[in-house]
């Protein structure tokens, strides 16, 4: 195939007019939900209810309903927490970093990725609270002045987590909302229903598409992008500190921050691809979310997957190179001990399968891509499982070793978190434009008049 690298590929395929774009994106909000929507919602809702029931059971009887035991103090809830925070990384990366790097192709997927970030962080945020023995005392983790003279412990990474995750959620939400304002206005203008109009009007904050609005908006968006960018790195760095700051072999590693960030982007992109493949099909957005978009994301998956693979190898190397026998044991135990099954699931899903993305055909084949990204999702969940559980289950004193086995309640809560995530995603697709109308118009053919009439590829 002959590709002309001197020209950018069109971001929007199919030469849609601006009105067509708007029509296309706004269609789900203009029409009544169909049967498929309700089926999808009831499936995700069921998962959510399973999770809620299991959570209620654990709150009523205690954390003992889970598989956690004496050496393995952290298990499924923390694994889920790190997993979901990781998923949440793609959104900010796509919307903030790629925006600053002026990657125009991001516009088609940014909105959706941002929304997924927020939903994923919501899913993640539940776990640190519910995993504690007494969740009703979670307020103790906030540094509020009180008569007892009690203060929080700023040397504890868990406390850093509280701030990191809440900051990330707030900034992501603001960033997402600011991006939504012009679209709220568009929706307000399109809508004839009074209720819808009121809602959209409220959220559009009086946007009139005026030139001044746009000037301010662009500046604010740029600033927020700049503000959000360090968070992409900081949040997962701090999450990795939960492990790296401890003295547990298998956790206590300086490679953790970059390794976790790469892993987070890796899993986040995989999740975005997983969901977008369905969304673009269901909502007829193939022209806006093109196969080129997916291919680009797959390239990032390949790149970050190899970073993760490098980290796996480096952990082994350092374990050997350090000469620390306890450290070496942990890694040998990971690969060949009782949790070897989890380790090899992790390695094959995260390192081996993404290698297929070296082939352009595979990068652009939706069914194969689908299989690989689901493997990546599974693999990244197992990565957190391997780090958390295998290290804890066999640490310093062999006398206290124990094998951890999750219970049905553990599984139920994990399912429930997926239920919550997809419920939010499904509701989002019907309530808000899944693609930024204003931004996509800006990158459509002919939207940016140039001196040669906007026709810059012929």
């Amino acid at each position, binding site marked *: 195939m002959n590709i002309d690298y001197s020209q950018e590929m069109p971001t929007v395929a199919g030469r849609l007019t601006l009105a067509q774009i708007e029509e296309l994106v706004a269609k789900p909000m203009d029409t009544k939900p169909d049967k498929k929507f309700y089926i999808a919602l009831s499936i995700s809702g069921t998962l959510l209810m399973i999770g809620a029931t299991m959570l209620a059971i654990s709150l009523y*009887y*205690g*954390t*003992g309903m889970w*598989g*956690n*035991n*004496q*050496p393995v*103090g*952290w298990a499924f809830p923390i694994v889920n927490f790190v997993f979901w925070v990781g998923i949440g990384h793609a959104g900010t990366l796509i919307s903030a970093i790629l925006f600053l790097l002026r990657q125009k192709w991001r516009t088609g997927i940014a909105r959706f990725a941002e929304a997924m970030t927020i939903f994923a962080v919501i899913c993640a945020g539940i776990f640190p609270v519910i*995993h*504690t*023995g*007494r969740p009703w*005392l*979670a307020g*103790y*983790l906030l540094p509020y002045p009180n008569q007892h003279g*009690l*203060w*929080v*412990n700023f*040397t*504890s*990474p*868990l*406390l850093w987590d*509280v701030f990191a995750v809440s900051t990330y959620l707030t900034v992501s939400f603001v960033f997402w909302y600011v991006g939504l304002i012009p679209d709220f206005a568009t929706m307000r203008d399109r809508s004839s229903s009074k209720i819808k109009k009121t809602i959209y009007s409220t959220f559009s904050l009086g946007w009139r598409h005026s030139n001044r609005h746009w000037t301010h908006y662009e500046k604010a968006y740029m600033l927020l992008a700049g503000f959000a960018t360090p968070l992409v790195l900081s949040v997962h760095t701090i999450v990795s500190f*939960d492990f790296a*700051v*401890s*003295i*547990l072999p298998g956790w206590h590693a300086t490679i953790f921050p970059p390794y976790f960030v790469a892993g987070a982007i890796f899993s986040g992109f995989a999740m975005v691809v997983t969901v977008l493949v369905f969304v673009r099909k269901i909502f007829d957005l193939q022209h806006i979310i093109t196969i080129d978009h997916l291919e680009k994301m797959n390239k990032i998956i390949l790149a970050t997957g190899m970073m993760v693979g490098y980290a796996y190898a480096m952990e082994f190397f350092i374990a050997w190179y350090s000469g620390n*026998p*306890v450290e070496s*044991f942990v890694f*040998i*135990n990971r690969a*060949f*001990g009782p949790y070897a099954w989890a380790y090899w699931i992790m390695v094959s899903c995260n390192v081996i399968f993404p290698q297929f993305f070296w082939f352009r055909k595979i990068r652009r084949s939706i069914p194969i891509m689908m299989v690989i990204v689901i493997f990546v999702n599974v693999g990244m969940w197992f990565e957190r499982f391997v780090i958390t559980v295998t290290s*804890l289950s066999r*640490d*310093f*004193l*062999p*006398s*206290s*070793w*124990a*094998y951890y*086995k999750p219970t049905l309640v553990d599984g139920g809560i994990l399912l429930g978190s997926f239920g919550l995530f997809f419920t939010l995603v499904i509701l989002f697709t019907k309530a808000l434009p899944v693609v930024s109308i204003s931004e996509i118009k800006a990158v459509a053919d002919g939207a940016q008049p140039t001196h040669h009439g906007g026709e810059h590829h012929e």
Partner: protein
Amino acid sequence: MSDIKSDNTQNMDSDQLEPNYWRSFEALYNDPTVIEAKGHEFKEGVTDDFSATGMSNLSRRKFLALLGASAAIAGTACTDYRDKGEIVPYNIKPEEITVGKPNFYASTCTACANACGILIKTREGRPIKVDGNPDHPVNKGKICAKGQANILNLYDPERLKTPLIGRNSSFNEVSWKDADSDIINALASANGKEIAIVTNPITSPTTSKVIEDFKSKYPATKVYSYSLFNDDIKNSAWQKTFGSGKYPLIKWNEAKVIVALESDFLGVDGNKIENSRLFAEGRDVETKSFNRLYCIDSTLTITGNNSDYRLRLRPEAQIEFVMSLMNELSSKGALNLSVNTSGYSLSGFATKYNLNKKVLDQLVKDLASNKGKAIVDAGISLSENVHVAVNLLNEALGNFTMFRSDSVVNIFAENSSVQEIDSLIQKINDGNVAAVIHFDCNPVYHLAQDFGYKKALSKAGLVVTLSERENETTFVSKYVLPINHNFESWGDAKTRTGVISLQQPVIAPLNSTRQKESILLTWINGKSDSFNETLYHEYLMKNWEVSIYQTLNSKLDFKRFWFGALHDGIVLTNDIPSISRSFNNAVTGLLSANVSEKGFAVIIKESYNVADGSFSHNGWMQELPHPVSKISWDNYAAVSEKTCKDLGVENFDMIEIKIGDRKLSLPVFMQAGTADNVVVIESGFGRQNSGTVANEVGFNSNLLMSKNSNLSQWIYSDATITKTGDSYKLASSQEHHAFDDPKVQDLHKSRHIIQEATVAAYVKNPHVIKEKHHEDQPSVYDPHPYNGLKWGMAIDLNKCTGCGDCVVACNVENNIPVVGKDQVLVSREMQWLRIDRYYSGTPEDPQVSMQPMLCQHCDQAPCENVCPVVATNHSPDGLNQMVYNRCVGTRYCSNNCPFKVRRFNFFNFRDHFRDSFQENPILALMHNPEVTVRSRGVMEKCTFCVQRISEGRADATHENRKLKGSDITTACQDSCGSNAIYFGDINDKESEFYKYRNHELGYYVLEELNVKPNVTYIAKLRNIHSEEV
């Protein structure tokens, strides 16, 4: 401007003290209207609308009153207030009780037949803790796990509360009066038919007198005594060898070489408290004098764990082994034997049983060169000929010097023989027994099935069982009479010559129970209304006054003597044991080693934790991990790895053991160090009708026992084993790692968790352990200077036998709940202190290392800086503290603890275990009021008994002196029979503790982590013929 200024100055002059504040120019220039208005309190017009009648007639007073009342009503209405019953303060304070201060009463423990002296700690009238009586010459201030856990028996919610009458297996309550009169009638109308009293061995002189009185009142009475585990064979062998007397006590502390043949003297044989103490005295790092322990036995025991050399041997081969050993010794010229042993050869024996010849050579040399300083001890379960041979060997080696002459075991009545019990059953079956009285015993469970005891009982005229709780025997009784617990009872005990121990109640009976002797006394009186609370108390005093006091030649009058004796808990008497030995040569005729050795050998052993079943209802004992296998809540068939392979079974597979027509199915556990083709099963499990905790836990090994056994009632050969195909989960507190997995093999040694040396190496180089030490590493944080008192612990691994008594002592002291088998299976046991057991070597001949593991109270504790809410922090005297109220339960501290000694309340375990069994209000009485009962979701761990430190500090302040490290002892330290635990002030250079804290053999576990623990372990020295461990 000048005007203003001057005006201002004038004003200042006229009123020097008050500055002139002005609000307007009018005010500044003294406008008359303003001056006028200033005179009024309110601005004009403001008060125009005011009318007193128009106001609410709610006065301020009334408003405040209503506010207060409604707040009070709201407050009380919203609380879950329940009438908690009468809470009555001491209007007149009892003389002996100071609220908040414990009282200690000396008494006697009746948890087993050793009857150790105890001190019972009571708080506001509630017994909450048991310690040994320091004045008692046998147990010297120590008490075993069962004695500690006895407190739970007192408060057991399932104790029988009222007399019961049974009809067709259903029981109804009956009044004492009705029960007594019915029984008295039955006894009176026995008409020459026998009245059988079945009892466990009686240790009390006064109880045996009560029984004598009973016999004289009802002459048809016959007493049958039995115990599931006893020294009868050992004693009868002694009698046969030496003509008279009992097997004497051994000077374990003086013996240089100890050879234990199937003997578990540190575990269940004899008085383990005394044995452990004496044994540990012979392994003292201070004097560098060490005994050498050889164990030749069928499976690992506590004694085997502590051995320097161990050989595994089928129990039937022991006789051949002793004969071969004698032959070898005599062929070396070390012995003069009166028996011909030429048919035996030690090297041939070693080949036959695949024993390590080097070890045998060492054994022969040691015995030959330590004549008079060695002792060979055969276990109680071995057959008579082994004991005779051992007696012969000890006699020939001149080892009688190792027998104690100051005291011997005192026995009031011999156990009934098999023939006697058989004849009882025969008489019952013939209808010649009017009444069977079970005097606090459980023969239906204990007696071998082929006696047919249970079946026979249905033919007895009247079956009365005196018992604390339901069991197999009460279930088939007509009358079940509830008796007082140990701590509610009067009594005395004489288990040794030279000392009588007194028992006094420390709490009034919690239920409508009676002292078991009082019940007999009521029947002796023949009137059902003759009972009163002081019946036995008076009888006991009278008996002492008449018989015991007279023999003592005390200068005190009886009352003073009696109260003094009660205070001390013991009376030393001057009965000197007569130990005379005259070797009876005829006995050599018993020595033949032609024992058939077919099939599998089955050994039934007394359980370390639940004994013969007398503690199987006790959750603390059920949950205490087995000292060797670390399995709790079950018994199992311990077999060797090779035998497992031969049988094609794996760990936890069910097997059926068949001896003759007796069968038992139970799970297999591959126990390292077990002899091939031997199955070892512990007793006391598989209980039925015995309450919530005991029922259906484990498997009833008594079903395999028979009244006719050729070796002994505990050892059977020629068993067959078949695999049933089922499997069963055993709960263990430690993972079982494969021996041949190079990844995990000997990790405890390579990680320096266990550091060991040999005596030879230590004598040569005292710094053999210290040389491996890591240098102090710098810390990111400024280390806190501990200049004052700083707490620390030292544990001497040379003395620790790994028995687990300290674990139970800690449970009692610190209100630790029972979690149950399901929770042990998912490794959530709550014990703050655990005994880690490590194997090295091969599964056939493992070397065992034990290590008590508890919170190390690290100076740089990794748990502390990861807690987000500072719920765990450090005290200025070096304690790692846990603030339960602040704990959110993130479990991060536990994850970051390299010793994994933190325990998390995954549930409200009191609610979770056996349908809220432990939530019963009566169990709340048992709790130590100085220790918080932890709620769900909270982390906890060893506190170094901080409540004792606080109490000690308060006392010191009260007495206006400085607190010293030696003022405080921890609960584990108090209970340790071998005195392996030292506690005190690290900075007190004068203290005994300081010596151990800074001992040249001392090391920290995981020293390289630089967490700076405050628990020092004194490295174990193995007394082997080599400098390498």
